[in-house]
């Protein structure tokens, strides 16, 4: 369903504070927004609840687009820790690199990172999707419960440590698997969902057949004394 958006509104963060911007975004009906001079400020465009289209021209600090619902947020730069943390729906695109914990505990929506993502990408994921064109750091997918993580480059150590039902797809090399994470067969249904995810993330030229799938061995789902020592 398409939503009619209000006219473009331009906000220069060099003139107005982050609180002022967020307050406007919370109060206004869905619209198009251009935000300039973010200068690494934290908590830009957090807690949005309507399908705004927000473009941020530059680098952002921690928690950009945190807990997003419905909105499409684009960052034309790099982002700090916890971009789109606990996102519920909508899309967040990072044209640069993302720091640690990108998409942490996201419940829904799509986070597309054109550069690389640092450690703990998709940590505690709860249904959201994270697609990274580059590589990811260690402990990516740590305790990820559901949702999908796609890595077109390499993944660091302890990939998918203590993972639950989330699925991880990696095209490149991995530094090592975390506890209870194993390589799994890439079946046709996985190739189809991976193709759709890549397409949504603007990476339709990537071939799903080049990826490997990782997930839970489900050996830690119920306590066993032999796992404790």
């Amino acid at each position, binding site marked *: 369903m398409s939503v009619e958006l209000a006219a473009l509104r331009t906000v220069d963060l060099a003139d107005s504070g982050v609180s002022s911007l967020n307050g406007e975004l919370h109060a206004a009906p869905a619209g198009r927004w251009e935000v300039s001079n973010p200068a690494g400020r934290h908590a830009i465009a*957090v807690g949005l609840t309507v399908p705004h289209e927000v473009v941020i021209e530059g680098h952002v600090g921690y928690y950009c687009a*945190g807990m997003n619902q419905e909105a499409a947020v684009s960052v034309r730069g790099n982002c700090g820790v916890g971009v789109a943390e606990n996102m519920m729906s909508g899309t967040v695109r990072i044209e640069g690199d993302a720091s640690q914990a990108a998409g*942490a505990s996201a419940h829904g929506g799509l986070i597309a990172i054109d550069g690389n993502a640092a450690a703990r990408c998709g*940590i505690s994921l709860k249904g959201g999707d994270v697609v990274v064109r580059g590589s990811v750091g260690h402990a990516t997918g740590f305790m990820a419960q559901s949702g999908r993580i796609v890595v077109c480059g390499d993944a660091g150590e302890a990939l998918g440590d203590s993972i639950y039902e989330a699925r991880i797809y990696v095209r490149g090399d991995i530094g090592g698997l975390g506890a209870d994470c194993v390589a799994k067969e890439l079946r046709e249904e996985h190739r189809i969902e991976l193709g759709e995810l890549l397409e949504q993330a603007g990476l339709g030229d990537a071939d799903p057949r080049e990826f490997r799938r990782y997930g839970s061995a489900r050996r830690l789902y119920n306590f066993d004394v032999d796992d404790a020592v």
Partner: protein
Amino acid sequence: MTAKNGTDRAGWRDGLRESATFDRPTIHEIRRAAREGVYDIRGGGAKRRVPNFDDLLFLGASVSRYPLEGYRERCDTDVVLGTRFAKKPLHIDIPVTIAGMSFGALSAPAKEALGRGATAMGTSTTTGDGGMTEEERSHSNTLVYQLLPSRYGMNPDDLRRADAIEVVVGQGAKPGGGGMLMGQKISERVAAMRDLPVGIDQRSACRHPDWTGPDDLEIKIEELREITDREKPIFVKVGASRPYYDVALAVKSGADVVVLDGMQGGTAASQEVFIEHVGIPTLAAIPPAVQALVELGMHRKVQLIVSGGIRSGADVAKALALGADAVSIGVAALIAIGDNDPTLEAEYEKIGSAAGFYDDWHEGRDPAGIFTQDEELAARLDPELGGRQLANYLRTLVQETQTLARACGKSRVQNLEPEDLVALTVEAAAMARVPLAGTEWIPGQERY
């Protein structure tokens, strides 16, 4: 059988002497460990005796101080939480709140009973791991929403409909530890709220996924304020281990309220070794916390809520006298709504326990219908009756607190002060930083 020395010890016979080191619980635990090969998990707080509020006494008024008259003279009990930064601080009628306890660990009727009782007395309840249920939101006029490391059920809509937000760093029963919810209690509803498969053991993380340390916490709190348009008070809850530093860092991070949970604080499920051997007693935690607030010029500006082993109005009054703005109760509230009820003795026996001792809360077989997700068991708990009992208990706590405050000449319970207290033991005197009774001696200090 009754022993000659008057003690009642099953198995005692002439000439047999029990070891203080290898006493019967110790021997039982060694035998259990040898049989099962796994650490013991249970609910509740520390059972060992530690210096506590019973080791303090109020001095009461005399010639040098004058008291207030019984129930007739005014003695205010309300408290405002979140005055530092929040646009909408909480104004509660009594200085006793209900601590965070999860739906999952507790049944839905139990959460409802807590909400009903707290609301009747004009105070707040708190969610727990697993998110907010309609039962607790609709029955709690004032509800504090916890942001926990697991982020189970974390939802910005619930964040906005909460009255305050509590960032949980740790809890007194297990500072440094995460949570557990064993598979027996993962019903379809609990699983759906937490986005995990039915029946698996759930480990709640011990660290937040997207922040580490006080500098990050400051930014995290700022994000929460931005999401909620700076309306909600932000609490930071810490388990008592290094309260001087933790409270100072919570203040530095921008907390409106600090919740400090001592080692007697309960848990729904933790390792026994953790419960009994990590953290410090509530009594020992308050003075360093208050010292940090005073040194930062933030005492009474950032409110301090103390929890962990609060049982009576005397405990409430003593915590306030040491500098807390309010206290929080968990285990005591659950007892008030029906936990460990002696009328269920036969049923506790069937599951290998006894009324007054039952602590296998993680197993989901609670005959009182509190620590369970079994619909049949949960239906045994009448939330209206439980709510009335909790309100009665809270009312009693407040009456007792006022009684002691008036005896010390205070027209507001928070006006109680360390000068009103003495200690019965050297240990309690040192920890509470009040003089040993009958002396001016505070161990570690010259005088107060």
